């Protein structure tokens, strides 16, 4: 079943077309990767899908509903969560509280209801328990009481994934989750990605780490200068002439590389 459907998505910044009529589908329960050289438009594409930026043209359908024109927080509440290339954590708060804030999504609690109470609402306890559970799922529960700004780089990336998971998403967009991770951390991340997928969350990953992409992705979309130049399973993408040229420049002529 097609879960996310992107059609003709275009974003222009002045004379530059950062995303140029990109179309692709994501099937429910799959892991899809978006790759491309620096400046190919990957992050802009993510921002368009998640409502952090407005597309000039094109459509995004998620589980049968259009996401165009909706606010980022509304898109998260619809079940599409994301992480950022440069982590956007709540630096002063502990790892637990970072996840806790996102876990609040599933619990009621407006101003009035919060103001007039004399003991903790049941939702307050559930939220805290859920946050602990998600830190464990991400394998970082040992850091629960550490402020985000004091966390090692790899842990920060996993924390942002745990925080996105706390919104109970059905689809997650991860923007370069392995950037800056060492080999062992990348291994932990890959295991976490499989666990998350197995819990029923569909994944779309922007990533530079080709080893990770080739291992986890069932399908790959390749962008170059804003446009989609290839789409398919990893083995085909690795042999795709246009892809090789995009990554290696003009060195590959008609007579091969």
């Amino acid at each position: 079943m097609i879960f996310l459907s992107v059609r003709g998505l275009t974003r222009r910044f002045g004379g530059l077309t950062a995303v140029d009529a990109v179309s692709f589908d994501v099937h429910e329960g799959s892991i899809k990767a978006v790759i491309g050289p620096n400046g190919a438009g990957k992050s802009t594409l993510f921002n368009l899908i998640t409502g952090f930026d407005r597309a000039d043209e094109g459509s995004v359908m998620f589980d049968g509903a259009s996401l165009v024109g909706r606010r980022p927080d509304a898109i998260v509440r619809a079940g599409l969560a994301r992480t950022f290339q440069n982590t956007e954590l709540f630096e002063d708060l502990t790892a637990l509280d970072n996840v806790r804030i996102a876990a609040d999504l599933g619990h009621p609690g407006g101003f009035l209801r919060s103001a007039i109470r004399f003991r903790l609402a049941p939702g307050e306890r559930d939220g805290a328990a859920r946050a602990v559970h998600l830190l464990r799922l991400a394998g970082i529960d040992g850091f629960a009481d550490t402020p985000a700004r004091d966390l090692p780089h790899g842990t920060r990336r996993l924390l942002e994934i745990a925080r996105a998971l706390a919104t109970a998403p059905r689809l997650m967009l991860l923007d370069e989750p392995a950037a800056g991770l060492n080999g062992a951390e990348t291994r932990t991340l890959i295991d976490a990605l499989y666990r998350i997928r197995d819990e029923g969350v569909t994944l779309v990953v922007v990533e530079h780490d080709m080893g990770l992409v080739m291992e986890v992705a069932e399908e790959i979309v390749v962008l170059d200068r804003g446009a989609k130049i290839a789409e398919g399973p990893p083995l085909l993408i690795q042999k795709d002439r246009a892809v090789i040229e995009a990554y290696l420049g003009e060195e590959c002529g008609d007579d091969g590389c």
Partner: protein
Amino acid sequence: MSGVKGSRTLMTPHLALIAAAVAVAAVPLLTPDRYVLKVLVYVGVNVIVIAGLALLFGHAGQISMGHAAFVGIGAYTSAYLVKTLGAPWLVGAIAATMLAAAGGLVLALPALRLRGHYLAMATLGFNEIMYVVFREARAVTGGNDGLGGIPYPEVAGLRIDTPVGVYLLVWGVALLTLLLVTNILRSRPGRAMRALHATENGALACGIDTVGLKIRTFALSAALAGLAGALYAHGVGFISPTTFGLDQSVIYVAIVVVGGAGSLAGPVLAAVALTLLPYADALVPGLTKETIAVMQDWEADIYGLAMIAVVIFAPAGIGGLLRRASARRAGEVRG
């Protein structure tokens, strides 16, 4: 583990509130002095304003240089309704709160687009506009001469016209305000405010409706300022535009900075200390008139120095010092 933590973090501020309530109740028993009680009414009014501003500025990170204007809106609304139109005090106080909240909604609109210095400028402009309205709308406000003879508060046929009565009313409302604000800060909306303050993109990624949050927080914060204004007008009996000028708004912001962002106890303590400063003779016996006159003349400079000292030596303010002290105590207990 988290359950223990949750109950501890909720208990501490509630215990502090109970201690504060005992202290508030003890004052009239210790001294019947009119001057002391009047000064403490000013303090109580400011505590209510600061609780609202600590929510908006200290926690949600949205600066308002216009809070004195909301106090003014509340004060003039209630004074006009009760004194000129003969409405019951409770109606005046509720109308004051709601009109100030409406003003907060208006001021929330620029907050949706502006940040930091630009939001400060926009709210500052709002205060200046309202200041001109307070001065020029003479039919309602009495202009520069002010509005005097505002009736004492009256609740359910009971006229609160003694210094002790006014003091207890103002501080009763102040303590109730602190309880409600504490509860909000310890729940979902409070966490959402801290998230918004830390990174708006991060807050959006958590599904937080930042637009609604800003609007509600501005409205609630302004409503509390309006309520404080209504208490001030009827408790003191006289209001004039200078009380609601930009310099007062700056003092409110200074109090929250000295008190510390992300804290409620810090700004409340700062509000008490800095409001008492020019009236120190009410509490400290033996201060000469000259000393007090000097302190009142240099009031703004003393606030300025306090703010600079905090920014340099204790950027997290009084709240940060309190947190550090309680962390040290917890460490001693454990070790």
